[in-house]
């Protein structure tokens, strides 16, 4: 489809200026304009389809499960905005070629500009809500880059931050609104949503959705009270202001309201909120514009005022109001873009934007002055220009609405006042700059700009005139198509013409013009009054607010995240306790319905040993070796408990892990301080911790009791029934590990491998304090490798390996398997290290632990991949029985290969952990470079 190229071409185009950056400016501008021009050509070729009501679209699946598509469509509304974005964008590219000074990085500027163009096109063409939001935020980001283009200037950076923060915050509200819409409608497809107006209006969430979406629109379109970012964004280069802050980005909010107009409007809430916000913005903007001495400041507030006007139109409950709103979008974009460009020319050729200095420029640049005067007249609403037409329509609609009930008469009155203010500030723009005496203290003598810098202004002014004189011929069809997007049920008949006869709107226009002229003549006294207000710099207020916010955030963070591990574990335990305690409170009683089993003496003895061992560990924790003994008692009893309660596999595993753990602790004790002082423990702390610990124990104990006395629905019957027939083994636990849940086990041995590698890295190059005596000052034994131990352990090694092989082989059918066999092998090898020393081991068989780990993981992985060869899913197992003379019948299973992988990984990881720690005291210790120390 062609449509996808419309946003894609400018995106590719963003790369062009980066490549052409060092070439002459004209070539750079030409290259930049090329791809957007092609995109514009594509859009123009699609116009007949859109006008005929056949909307071109493009769609590709992305994440179907989350109903995310890459999806574009072009309807009347999208077409109007696309033409504005591409058309004015091309003019701005031309204008910027002359505006930017030789010192400016034009490549970066053009790249950001085209990125912004892509984002805007994405917003207006998106047919998926989430995608629309993505481009929406992209406009905020790319406009940040453009506003802060002169990043050496503080006001540019502050202005960019402010624009980014306010529009970004609005964007988040919009995202929430869009997600709610998606939840209510059940689809993120825009066309589905647009057809579900009734569903949305009836939803209880409707007010929330509407406010959230409007928050996004109001922040983007600088509506009161979120308007303060727009004047600050005037720190941007003028081409940016002319593109973003008159024609496109600020219109994105308007676009959003228009986009959801068919489904979200038509309620009293919508009309009340939108019209009041629009009206307020219209008046505040127009009033403030009058008092701005900065040329761009005046235009910025005038833009705010006009955006308010459009919003007001969208909030009026008459049929033609929304058409008038869209018509004014076009008109405002055209005359305001040309005015910004004219302001940029004046700034460029005279060196100032201050209207108190700029006077009588008509003499110096008559041609530019004429163009600016025509555009300003359009802004004021003078007949024969496009601004007049949409303003007349506003007056007409304002007269016929009933939006505010019995207060509705206020709207025409206030709108006329707004019109008078617009005439006044337009008059000021023209009179103050081009007439009114002589320039005062300008940095350079003003003169006409280069011809081509004026061309974009000329084109736009000609459009102002053409639309103003032949409105129906030029924009009639387009507005009809836009109307079809806003009012799918049917567009009312309308006709735009210059002359409607003597009627109320004309009278209001006359009132506005005469009122504006009167206001302007009285400007001196009004300025004097205005100067009595204290000047507030929104930038400073904003920065202050931000700093306070950051300070508060830092304070909260410092309180939560104070760098103390003890504080963190306290939080962790308290949170877990709360999460556990809350549901327990809501449980009627701890005791369930299940009958309890009789207590036997063995169990009681074991329980007592566990309790005594645990408590002794706490009491003896400052005598480390004793504490280690008591912990190992607990571990041993736990493994016996497993054996007692019908879990032989667990008992074997726990037993072998116990040995490895104790060796590990013994090694670690050597490196940790031998004495632990208890004198720093305050009694308050002990009481607090005892309280928390007791509460945690009580919660877990209760939970255990509640669980044990309630019936469980287990899924294990499946495993028991299928272990033999499906997995080919009678040891169900092992079959679960290597077959049914093989993928879990694969993940677990990977974690083991990662832990081993992490430990290797932690120990590499570590320099440790090595004590030469125990805590009582007795030196360590000089006989490091007793002969008896060496001899016995060496002769035991083959036996131990045989046992581990036996345990491994029988694992599928009897207690055993890769985990246990791996641990036994590892312990047998560690014993050799203990008895014979690291050096002896290196000479007599240099074990490369990492090879064990890697080959183990690879074998496990390949045994899983192997099933792909038989077109089965990953880790599908296979087994069969074979017969060999002498050996007899035996079984071969692919799960055994997997178990072999587990076996090797466990050996490698365990040895790597223990042996690397043990090597620390020797010359064989790991170093940072991997060399032997």
């Amino acid at each position: 489809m062609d449509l996808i190229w419309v946003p894609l071409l400018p995106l590719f185009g963003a790369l062009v200026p980066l490549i052409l950056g060092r070439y002459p400016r004209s070539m750079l501008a030409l290259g930049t304009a090329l791809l957007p021009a092609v995109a514009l050509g594509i859009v123009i070729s699609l116009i007949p389809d859109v006008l005929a009501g056949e909307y071109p679209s493009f769609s590709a699946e992305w994440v179907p499960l989350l109903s995310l598509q890459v999806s574009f469509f072009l309807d009347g509304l999208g077409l109007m905005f696309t033409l504005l974005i591409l058309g004015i964008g091309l003019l701005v590219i031309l204008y910027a070629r002359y505006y930017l000074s030789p010192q400016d990085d034009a490549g970066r500027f053009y790249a950001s500009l085209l990125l912004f163009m892509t984002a805007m096109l994405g917003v207006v063409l998106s047919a998926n809500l989430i995608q629309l939001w993505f481009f929406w935020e992209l406009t905020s980001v790319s406009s940040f880059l453009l506003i802060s283009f002169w990043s050496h200037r503080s006001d540019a950076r502050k202005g960019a931050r402010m624009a980014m923060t306010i529009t970004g915050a609005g964007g988040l509200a919009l995202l929430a609104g869009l997600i709610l819409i998606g939840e209510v409608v059940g689809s993120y497809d825009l066309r589905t949503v647009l057809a579900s107006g009734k569903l949305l209006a009836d939803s209880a969430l409707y007010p929330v959705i509407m406010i959230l979406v409007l928050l996004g629109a109001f922040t983007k379109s600088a509506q009161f009270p979120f308007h303060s970012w727009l004047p600050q964004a005037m720190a941007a280069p003028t081409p940016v202001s002319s593109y973003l802050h008159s024609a496109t980005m600020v219109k994105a909010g308007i676009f959003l309201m228009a986009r959801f107009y068919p489904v979200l409007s038509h309620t009293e809430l919508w009309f009340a909120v939108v019209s009041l916000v629009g009206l307020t913005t219209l008046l505040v903007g127009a009033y403030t514009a009058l008092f701005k001495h900065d040329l761009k400041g005046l235009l910025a507030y005038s833009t705010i005022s006009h955006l308010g006007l459009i919003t007001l139109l969208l909030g009026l409950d008459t049929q033609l109001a929304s058409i008038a709103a869209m018509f004014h979008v076009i008109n405002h974009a055209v005359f305001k873009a040309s005015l910004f460009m004219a302001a940029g020319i004046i700034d460029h050729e005279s060196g100032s934007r201050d209207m108190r200095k700029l006077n009588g420029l008509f003499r110096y640049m008559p041609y530019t002055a004429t163009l600016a005067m025509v555009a300003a007249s359009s802004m004021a609403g003078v007949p024969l220009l496009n601004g007049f037409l949409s303003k007349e329509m506003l007056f007409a609609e304002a007269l016929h609405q009933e939006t505010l009930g019995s207060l509705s008469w206020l709207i025409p009155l206030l709108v006329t006042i707004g019109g008078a203010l617009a005439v006044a500030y337009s008059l000021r723009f023209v009179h103050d700059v081009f007439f009114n005496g002589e320039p005062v203290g300008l940095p350079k003598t003003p003169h006409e700009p280069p011809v081509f810098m004026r061309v974009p202004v000329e084109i736009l002014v000609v459009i102002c005139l053409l639309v103003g004189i032949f409105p129906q011929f030029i924009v009639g069809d387009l507005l009809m198509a836009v109307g079809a997007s806003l009012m799918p049920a049917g567009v009312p008949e309308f006709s735009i013409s210059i002359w409607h006869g003597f009627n109320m709107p004309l009278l209001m226009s006359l009132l506005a013009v005469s009122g504006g002229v009167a206001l302007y003549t009285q400007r001196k006294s009004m300025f004097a009054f205005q100067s009595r207000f204290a000047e507030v710099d929104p930038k400073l207020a904003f920065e202050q607010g931000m700093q306070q916010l950051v300070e508060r955030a830092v304070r909260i963070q410092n309180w939560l995240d104070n760098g103390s591990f003890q504080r963190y574990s306290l939080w962790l335990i308290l949170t877990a306790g709360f999460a556990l305690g809350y549901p327990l409170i809501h449980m009627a009683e701890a005791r369930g319905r299940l009958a309890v089993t009789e207590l036997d003496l063995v169990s009681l003895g074991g329980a007592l040993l566990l309790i005594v061992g645990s408590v002794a560990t706490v009491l003896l924790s400052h005598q480390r070796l004793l504490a280690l003994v008591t912990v190992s008692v607990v571990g041993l009893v736990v493994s016996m408990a497993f054996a007692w309660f019908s879990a032989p596999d667990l008992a074997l595993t726990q037993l072998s892990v116990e040995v490895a753990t104790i060796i590990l602790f013994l090694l670690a004790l050597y490196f940790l301080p031998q004495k632990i002082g208890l004198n720093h423990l305050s009694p308050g702390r002990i009481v607090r911790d005892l309280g928390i610990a007791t509460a945690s124990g009580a919660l877990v104990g209760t939970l255990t009791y509640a669980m044990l006395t309630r019936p469980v629905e287990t899924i294990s019957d499946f495993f028991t029934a299928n272990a033999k027939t499906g997995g080919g083994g009678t040891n169900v636990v092992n079959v679960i590990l290597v077959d049914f849940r093989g993928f879990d086990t694969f993940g677990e041995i990977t974690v083991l491998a990662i832990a081993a590698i992490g430990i290797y890295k932690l120990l590499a190059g570590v320099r440790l304090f090595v004590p030469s005596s125990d805590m009582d000052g007795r030196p360590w034994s000089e006989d490091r490798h007793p002969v008896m131990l060496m001899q016995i352990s060496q002769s035991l090694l083959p036996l131990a390996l045989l046992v581990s092989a036996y345990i491994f082989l029988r694992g599928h059918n009897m207690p055993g398997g890769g985990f246990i066999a791996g641990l036994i092998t590892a312990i047998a090898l560690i014993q050799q290290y203990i008895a014979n020393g690291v050096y002896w081991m290196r000479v007599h068989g240099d074990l490369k632990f990492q090879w064990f780990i890697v080959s183990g993981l690879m074998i496990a992985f390949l045994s899983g991949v192997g099933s792909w060869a038989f077109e089965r899913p990953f880790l599908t197992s296979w087994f069969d029985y074979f017969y060999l003379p002498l050996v007899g019948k035996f079984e071969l299973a692919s799960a055994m290969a997997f178990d072999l992988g587990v076996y090797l990984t466990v050996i490698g990881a365990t040895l790597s952990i223990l042996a690397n720690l043990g090597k620390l005291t020797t010359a064989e210790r790991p170093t940072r470079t991997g060399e032997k120390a």
Partner: protein
Amino acid sequence: MELVYSVTVGIMVTCSVFLMLRGHTFAIVMGLTLMSYAVNLFLFASGGLVLNQPAILAEGAEYSDPLPQALVLTAIVIGFAMTAFALILAIRARADLGNDQVDGKATSSDILADKDHEGQLRQHPDKATGGKHK
């Protein structure tokens, strides 16, 4: 039996939480070890407490629930890796920060404890004596 089992698990959790709230790395690793024992016992109990019915298939027998056993088996091995990692981290912290406090701040008792080894800091016996321990 169920009551005794639950009380035992509860007391083990109490002891481990108390140890985990201490400031010394060794106490915390001890607490972690105790905690993993308790957690494994808890997980294991979700299959019920059954005597003399291992999940080894035989003719017409009753079996204990194999699933919690399989889960606990891997939990034991992973728990070992975690304990080892925490312990090595403690050793590394001791090497880099010079004390065994989790917050990295030495208390007066640590300085006392290491006083008798003054002058031997960062000396490796193998290097000093050519492989022979002092």
